């Protein structure tokens, strides 16, 4: 399974639709302080099912919707789409290789979950992601400023890092 493309629109500081193409190997994101790099990281976590606003550096989910800049009003919806290519699971697997998951959040607080452009239930997206090996906790994020925590944590707290892999 490989990631192909990520689009953000109305997600945090990405007011306008912005697209990133993933490559084999290392895809680099660079730029000055505060320009939005970690926001791209948050977008990937969010579209892959992260439900906790604190893990996305927010206080509440509505913090994820673009809420204005000089000369630009807040937006009503945040949308992130992730396009990926599945690896075939044997010769009997006749499903199309291309697949996409998406997520929207509206100012009303309502959420929408997308699978191959269709609005579905959250559990449908979760199941599809699990199949491709991208379920929650199945991919790794090593976060800015949080690397040291595995050493500064007490011995008991460190277990949780292993629990996820077990």
């Amino acid at each position, binding site marked *: 399974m490989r990631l192909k493309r990520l689009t953000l629109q109305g997600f945090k500081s990405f*007011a306008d639709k912005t697209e990133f193409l993933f490559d084999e190997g290392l895809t680099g994101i660079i730029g000055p302080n505060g320009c939005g790099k970690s926001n791209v990281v948050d977008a990937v976590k969010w579209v892959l099912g992260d439900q906790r606003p604190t893990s996305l550096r927010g206080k509440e989910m509505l913090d994820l919707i673009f809420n204005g800049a000089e000369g630009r009003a807040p937006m009503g919806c945040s949308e992130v789409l992730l396009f990926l290519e599945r690896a075939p699971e044997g010769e009997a697997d006749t499903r199309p290789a291309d697949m996409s998951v998406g997520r929207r959040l509206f100012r009303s607080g309502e959420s929408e979950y997308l699978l191959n452009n269709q609005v579905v239930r959250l559990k449908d997206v979760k199941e599809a992601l699990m199949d491709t090996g991208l379920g929650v906790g199945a991919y790794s994020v090593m976060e800015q400023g949080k690397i040291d925590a595995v050493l500064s944590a007490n011995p008991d707290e460190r277990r949780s890092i292993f629990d996820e892999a077990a």
Partner: protein
Amino acid sequence: SRELFQRTFDEAREHFQEIFRMLFQGGKADMELIESDDPLEAGIEIYAKPPGKELRNIRLLSGGERTLTALAILFAVFKVKPSPFCILDEVDAALDEANVERFLRVLAGFVEDTQFLVVTHHKRTMADCQVLYGITMQRKGISSRMAVSLAEVESGRVDAIIDAP
């Protein structure tokens, strides 16, 4: 289950010893699973001895040495059950040039089976990326993306973009 945890731990421990040696170009490290009724004692103990130095409490390690040791643990666990995708957000922040180089060499060992999204301020890390996206806020408060070539980064022609909002 307890057995599964033990197997995961043993495998991670082996990877940790090896990755630590690669990141430090020598030295020795270990992790120990301490079972105890005393919750203050139970858990995972970490030992790290950089090359040429004596084994000491990990609190005495330098900032950069702690980053390398922590990365060795995180990648060791990752290697037990590698995912197809992994995000690194400025994990190289505390490393000097020589250690960034060693970190990238270890990263290269994972690239075959895993796609990495790497946020960085280090030019040496940028040099190892297949593609580079520069994020800017040309209109204040609104992020936009531009593709950037490594040649542009190294010539300093994008310093205004990668370093100054």
